[in-house]
């Protein structure tokens, strides 16, 4: 994947430290360390302990209780076989799906995989540009999937795929009136988040950065403010690039993380799914543990008292 470059010639974001010494390969799909050992044993080894840890800290959205705090988008995977491995490695219990014209969809295998994994479905309104279009799409999804849960997405800009706040709130109000359980994909604006919660959305899902960008959480302060502004669950949605982004979302107080590309377009999706699962748990634990305050200067961790004169 190429590094993001602003079309207006803006600065490139810095590389994370661990990536600095790697050879630059602009053509590779994703960067990462060497593959070592078998992967299936890794999932088999880690998943049971992670599932036990997750079970001790469930959360509820719209009356449904989940133990996994990782919501998975299905877009971007190369095969249905990898979908199943990713779903199982991630431990997810809630998976987003979309509707498209039948001719554009090759076979029924995705639904067979998801049914076999026993996950709950969260249909989305991806690609909708207006409230009217999003409401129609949600109604169609309710017919197709037999659920009134919907991830409401109303896009206002082709390049950034950022939500259109005006259309989004309009659509959310209509869908709540129609009895939908609305998961609103929104900007990181705490005021808009509050308006969506006030409109009756079951969860507010602010972006960390644009969909598929992998730019992480560009404004952690806004996410923390949004978390304080609403009582419904907050799910960080969009922009996650790697495990530390998912951990940060949880440290900021989010109840869950929704991601797709970061896993599905990773060079090794199953391994990245495991990484995300652990990051979400790690961030959640850290949030509960209470981080130390940030200081300008050092604070010694070894007592000065009793220091010898040498």
């Amino acid at each position: 994947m190429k590094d993001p470059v602003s079309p207006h010639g803006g600065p490139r974001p810095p590389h994370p430290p661990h990536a600095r010494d790697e050879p630059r390969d602009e053509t590779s799909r994703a960067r990462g360390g060497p593959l070592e050992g078998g992967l299936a044993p890794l999932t088999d080894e880690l998943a049971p302990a992670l599932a036990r840890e997750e079970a001790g800290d469930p959360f509820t959205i719209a009356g449904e209780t989940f133990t996994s705090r990782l919501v998975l988008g299905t877009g971007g995977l190369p095969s249905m076989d990898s979908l199943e491995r990713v779903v199982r490695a991630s431990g997810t219990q809630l998976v987003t799906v979309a509707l498209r014209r039948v001719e554009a969809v090759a076979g029924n295998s995705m639904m067979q995989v998801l049914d076999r994994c026993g996950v709950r479905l969260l249909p989305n309104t991806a690609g909708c540009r207006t409230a009217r279009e999003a409401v129609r799409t949600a109604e169609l999804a309710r017919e197709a999937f037999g659920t009134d849960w919907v991830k409401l997405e109303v896009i206002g800009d082709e390049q950034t795929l950022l939500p259109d706040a005006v259309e989004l709130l309009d659509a959310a109000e209509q869908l709540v009136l129609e009895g939908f359980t609305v998961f609103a994909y929104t900007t990181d604006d705490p005021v808009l988040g509050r308006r969506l919660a006030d409109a009756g959305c079951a969860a507010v899902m602010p972006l960390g950065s644009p969909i598929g960008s992998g730019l992480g959480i560009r404004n952690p302060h806004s996410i923390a403010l949004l978390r304080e502004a609403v009582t419904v669950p907050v799910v960080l949605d969009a922009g996650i690039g790697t495990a530390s982004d998912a951990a940060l979302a949880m440290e900021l107080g989010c109840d869950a993380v929704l991601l797709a590309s970061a896993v599905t377009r990773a060079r090794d999706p199953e391994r990245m799914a495991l990484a995300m699962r652990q990051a979400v748990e790690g961030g959640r634990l850290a949030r509960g543990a209470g981080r130390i305050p940030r200081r300008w200067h050092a604070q010694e961790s070894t007592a000065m008292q009793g220091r010898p004169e040498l």
Partner: protein
Amino acid sequence: MNITVNGSPVDLTEDATVADLVAQRSGGHDRVAVARNGDVVPRSTWAVTRLSPGDAVEVLAPTAGG
């Protein structure tokens, strides 16, 4: 009669219903949704909803997406 299905012209028998169309076009999908002239056609009414000449119909199926 001529209608439009998923953006393409289709010639159907005069008494065709939404259920007939879905049977032709569903391609093995069981979770299918249908919109007719922009409005949802509930599954329970497919068999009794007759199509009319000039109708624009969308037949949709589940796919991957974030």
